[in-house]
C-alpha cells in the first residue's frame, strides 16, 4: 500500500502542531536557514527534505500512527470480504442434484458487484461520506485532523480491498467446488426470451476473453442445450454439457468482480496519494513554511539585553535650605537671561562657568571666588544649574578643583533651577542632582531647591544679607 504521501502529510501536520507554540521569529530563522543550506547545496527545499531535516535534529518521537485505525478498518473489510465471498459463492453454486445452478443469478450478482464498485468510486471522488456517523462513533477524533479530507478515499480503498477479497474468495471457492463437485449449470429466466438473445448477451459479456481463453467463450449450442425450466424434463440431455459452463463463470467472475475491484483499488490508492499531496501543498502550515523559506530572516538587532542593568535611582539625600552664600556661580548658562531676585539679591557679582566658556575662565572663577570665600568665617557658594541638564563630569571636575582651592569649610549648594524659574523643578530632575551630590562623597556639597516665587525666601535672604559682614 503506497502511503508515503499520507505519512508525509501526517508527519508535516504533526510538526506544525509542535511548532505552534514556537515564536514566529525562531521558526523563520530555522526554516530560512534550511532554505539557504539547500540553496548552497544546489537543492530545492522540498517538503520531504524539510521533514528529513527536522526529523534528523529531533529525538525520536513516540509512535502514534493515525493510519493504524484505517489499516485495521481495511483489514476488517478484507476479512469480511473473504467471508462474504466464500459464503456468496457457496450460495450461488448451491447444488443438490435436483436443479441447475442458474447462470442468470450469477450474472445478476456479478453486475451488482460491478455497480457497488462503481458507486464506491463515485462516492470517493464526489467526497460523499454517508457513513461518517459510523466513523465518528468509532473514533471521535476522526472529525478533525489532516486525514479528514482523505476519509472518502481511504474509505473507498478499504471498501475496494474488501470487494477484491470477496472476488478472490469467491473464485477460489468456485475452483474448489468445480474440482470436488459435479456442478450443473444452466440458464433460466421467466422472461420471454429466446436462446439467441441470451447467447448475444453472454457473447457480449465474454468479449474481453474471447481470444484469450476460447473454451470460456459460450457457444450457441451450449446455450440452446442448457436452458432449463422449473418443471421441465430435459434431464435426458447429455449431462456433461451442464458442467461446460464453469470456465465461463470463472472468467466472468474474474473480469467483472475481481478486475474492476483491482483497478479501482489501485485508482483509490493513487487518488488518496494525489489528494494527500494536494492537502500537503494546501496545508496552512505549508504556506507559512514556504513563506518563511522564501523570505529573508530579518534581525533588527534586538538580541542585546541590559534591561536588568538599570542605574540605582534611589537616594537618601534631601534638598537642604538655601544657605547664605557669598559667591554665586551660574553653571553652563543657567539663569539666562536673568536670575530671579530670590537668588540674585545680595550678590555684588554673579560669576559664570561651564558650558561655552573656556576651562581657563572656569579657573579664574574659582580663584575669584576663593578670595571672597576666604574672607568669610562661614563661607558658602551657590552654584545655579539647569535642573533638566544632567550633571556631567565637567561639573564634577569643577567642584573638585574648587574644593581644592576654596577654604575647606566652604558649604557648596547646588541649586537646580527649572525652565520656568518661578516653578520648582520636577522631582525626578532634583533627584539626579541629589544623587550627584551623594556621589561626590563630600558632605559639604548639598542641593537646595528654594521656592523662587515665595516672597518669604527673598525676605529671609535679605535678612541674611544684612547680617553679612
Amino acid at each position: 500500500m503506497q502511503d508515503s504521501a499520507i505519512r508525509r502529510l501526517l508527519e508535516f501536520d504533526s510538526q506544525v502542531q509542535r511548532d505552534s507554540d514556537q515564536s514566529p521569529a525562531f521558526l523563520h530563522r530555522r526554516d530560512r536557514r534550511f532554505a539557504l543550506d539547500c540553496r548552497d547545496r544546489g537543492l530545492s527545499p522540498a517538503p520531504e527534505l524539510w521533514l528529513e531535516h527536522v526529523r534528523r535534529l529531533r529525538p525520536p518521537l513516540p509512535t502514534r500512527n493515525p493510519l493504524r485505525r484505517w489499516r485495521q478498518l481495511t483489514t476488517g473489510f478484507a476479512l469480511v470480504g473473504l467471508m462474504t465471498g466464500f459464503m456468496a459463492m457457496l450460495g450461488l453454486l448451491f447444488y443438490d442434484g435436483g436443479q441447475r445452478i442458474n447462470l442468470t443469478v450469477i450474472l445478476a450478482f456479478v453486475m451488482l458487484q460491478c455497480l457497488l464498485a462503481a458507486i464506491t468510486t463515485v462516492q470517493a471522488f464526489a467526497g460523499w461520506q454517508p457513513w461518517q456517523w459510523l466513523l465518528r462513533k468509532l473514533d471521535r477524533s476522526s472529525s478533525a485532523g489532516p486525514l479528514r479530507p482523505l476519509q472518502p478515499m481511504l474509505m473507498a480503498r478499504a471498501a475496494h480491498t474488501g470487494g477484491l477479497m470477496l472476488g478472490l474468495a469467491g473464485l477460489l471457492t468456485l475452483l474448489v467446488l468445480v474440482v470436488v463437485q459435479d456442478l450443473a449449470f444452466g440458464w433460466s429466466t421467466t422472461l420471454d426470451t429466446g436462446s439467441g438473445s441470451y447467447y448475444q448477451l453472454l457473447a457480449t459479456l465474454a468479449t474481453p476473453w474471447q481470444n484469450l481463453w476460447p473454451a470460456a467463450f459460450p457457444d450457441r449450442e451450449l446455450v440452446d442445450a442448457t436452458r432449463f425450466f422449473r418443471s421441465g424434463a430435459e434431464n435426458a440431455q447429455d449431462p456433461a454439457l451442464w458442467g461446460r459452463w464453469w470456465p465461463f463463470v470463472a472468467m466472468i467472475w474474474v473480469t467483472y468482480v475481481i478486475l474492476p475491484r483491482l483497478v479501482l483499488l489501485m485508482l483509490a490508492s493513487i487518488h488518496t496519494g494525489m489528494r494527500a499531496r494536494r492537502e500537503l501543498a494546501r496545508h496552512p502550515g505549508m504556506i507559512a513554511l514556504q513563506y518563511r523559506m522564501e523570505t529573508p530572516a530579518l534581525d533588527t538587532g534586538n538580541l542585546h539585553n541590559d534591561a536588568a542593568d538599570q542605574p540605582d535611582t534611589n537616594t537618601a539625600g534631601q534638598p537642604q535650605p538655601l544657605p547664605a552664600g557669598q559667591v554665586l556661580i551660574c553653571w553652563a548658562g543657567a539663569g539666562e537671561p536673568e536670575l530671579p531676585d530670590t537668588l540674585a539679591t545680595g550678590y555684588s557679582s554673579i560669576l559664570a562657568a561651564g558650558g561655552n566658556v573656556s576651562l581657563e575662565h572656569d579657573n579664574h572663577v574659582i580663584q575669584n571666588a576663593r578670595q571672597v570665600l576666604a574672607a568669610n568665617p562661614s563661607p558658602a557658594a551657590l552654584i545655579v544649574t539647569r535642573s533638566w541638564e544632567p550633571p556631567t563630569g565637567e561639573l564634577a571636575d569643577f567642584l573638585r578643583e574648587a574644593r581644592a582651592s576654596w577654604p575647606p569649610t566652604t558649604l557648596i549648594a547646588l541649586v537646580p533651577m527649572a525652565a520656568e524659574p518661578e516653578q520648582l523643578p520636577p522631582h525626578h530632575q532634583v533627584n539626579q542632582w541629589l544623587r550627584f551630590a551623594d556621589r561626590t562623597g563630600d558632605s559639604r556639597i548639598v542641593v537646595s531647591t528654594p521656592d523662587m516665587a515665595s516672597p518669604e525666601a527673598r525676605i529671609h535672604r535679605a535678612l541674611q544679607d544684612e547680617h553679612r559682614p
Partner: protein
Amino acid sequence: MTAPVFAVVGHPNKGKSSIVATLSQNDAIAIALEPGTTRQRQEYPLTVDGKTLYTLVDTPGFQRPRRALEWLEAHSIAASDRAETVQAFIVQHRGDNGFTDECELLTPLTEGAGIIYVVDGSVPYSAQHEAEMTILRWTGRPSLALINSIGDDDYSDTWAQALGQFFQVVRKFNAVSAPFEQHLSLLRAFGQLEPEWEQPLEQATAFLQAQRRQRRAQAAALIARTLEDMMSFREKRTLTSLQTSELSDEELARQLRTSWYDNQRKREQHLRIAIERLYEHHRVERQEAELEWHSEHDLFSEDSRKAWGVNRRYLATAGFGAGAVGGAGVDAVALGHSLGAGALVGGLIGAAGSYFYGDRLTLPVLNTGVLTNGLRTATFGPVQDSQFGYVVLGRAINHWWHISHRNHAGRELLDLAPADNHWLEHLDRANRQIIHRALERCRKQRALDDKTRMALTAAIEQAMGAYDDWRLNRT
C-alpha cells in the same frame, strides 16, 4: 562594501538609547532618566539572512567635551589633521577614567560611522553644547541631528533652527510615539548621508515593511486560533459515584464555571503574550493585570460586552448572510427550480435567529452524563453566545493595535481602555459573514477545517485593518 554604521551620540540623558531601542525594536535596552545609564557603546546590527545592512551604535553621552576639545586644539595644526587628531585622542586616552565616555562615543566615528546627534526638543534650546558639536565636526563624518522629545513641552523649532547650522540634516523624531512610517522615513534619511548608504538603507526599510505585513498576518492567525479555542472550550470533570453524591448540582456548576472562566482568561493571556512576542515586546506591563482592571473591564463583565460586543442589527445582517449560504445549498440541490427561495428563507431564518437569540449572554450550559461504571462526566461549555466571540475578537484586536503601534522605547503601562464604538461595522459584509459563520460553527462544536480556518484568519486580518482605519480616523 561594508555596511553603514550610525553612532547615536549627544549630551547625556537626551534619549539616545530610546532612539536605538525603537529603531532596533529592542525593549531590553536599559532606559532611565539618569545620566550615565549607558556606560559602554553597544552595537545593534540589522541583519538579513546574517548579512548586516546597517548597524546602530548606542553610546554614552559627552561628559567632558571642553576638556576633550582643549586637548584636540592643542594637538592640531590645520583643519586637515582634525580627524587624525580625534583618533590620536582616543589612542591617548583609552583606559583613562577621565575620558572613558568620550573614547567610547568617538571610537565608532573614527571607524567610519555616521553621526546621529540627539537632543531633547522638550527642553529649551541651549547654546552650551557647542564644544560637543565642534568635536563631532572635527571627526569629519556625515551627520544628522535628531530632535527627540522626552517631556511634554515643545522647543523643537528653536532646536531645529539652531542645529541646522551644524548638521547636514535635522529631523524630529519622538522615540516613544513616532509611528512606524516615521521609523522608515528616518532610516531613509540616514541613507541620504552618503551615496553608498542609500541602497542598504532602502533594502532595510523594504524588509522592515515586509516584516510588519507578515507580523500582521501572523497576529491574525494567532487571534483566529484563540477565538476557535475559546469558543469551543469545554470544562470537563469525571466524578466518582461518591463525589456525585457529595456534590450538589449547583456546587458542581459553580466549580466548573469558575474553572471554565479561569481557563478562558488564561487562554486570552496566552494570546496577549504571543502577540507581544511577535512584535518583540517582552516586557510590557499591562493595566489588565491589575485587580482593578478585572472588576471594570473583565472579559465577562457587562462593560466588556457593551464595548466589544456587536449590536442586534449587526448580528441580524451577519446571520442573514450565513443563513442564505445554507439556503443556497437547497437551491443548488433543486437545480435552481426553487428560484432562490432557499437562500431567501435560509437568510431570513438566520437573521431572525441571530436577532432574537444572539444578543443574549447565555451562559455555557452544564451537562452531566449518566453514571457509567461508577463514573459520571460533567461538562461545562462551550459558550452558547456568539457575542462572546465578538467580545474576545474586539479585545484581541484592540490589544494587537496597541502593541503594533507601541515603540520599543516605550516603558509606560499599557492601558487597554475599551473602545466606545462598534468599529466592526466598518468591516465589509463578506468578511463579517465569514467571522459569524466560524463563530457559529465553533459554538456548535463543529471543528473548523483548514479552508474555513484560513478564511477566518483572512477575515480577521481585514477586521484588523478596519480597526486600524477606525482608530486613525481614516474611515
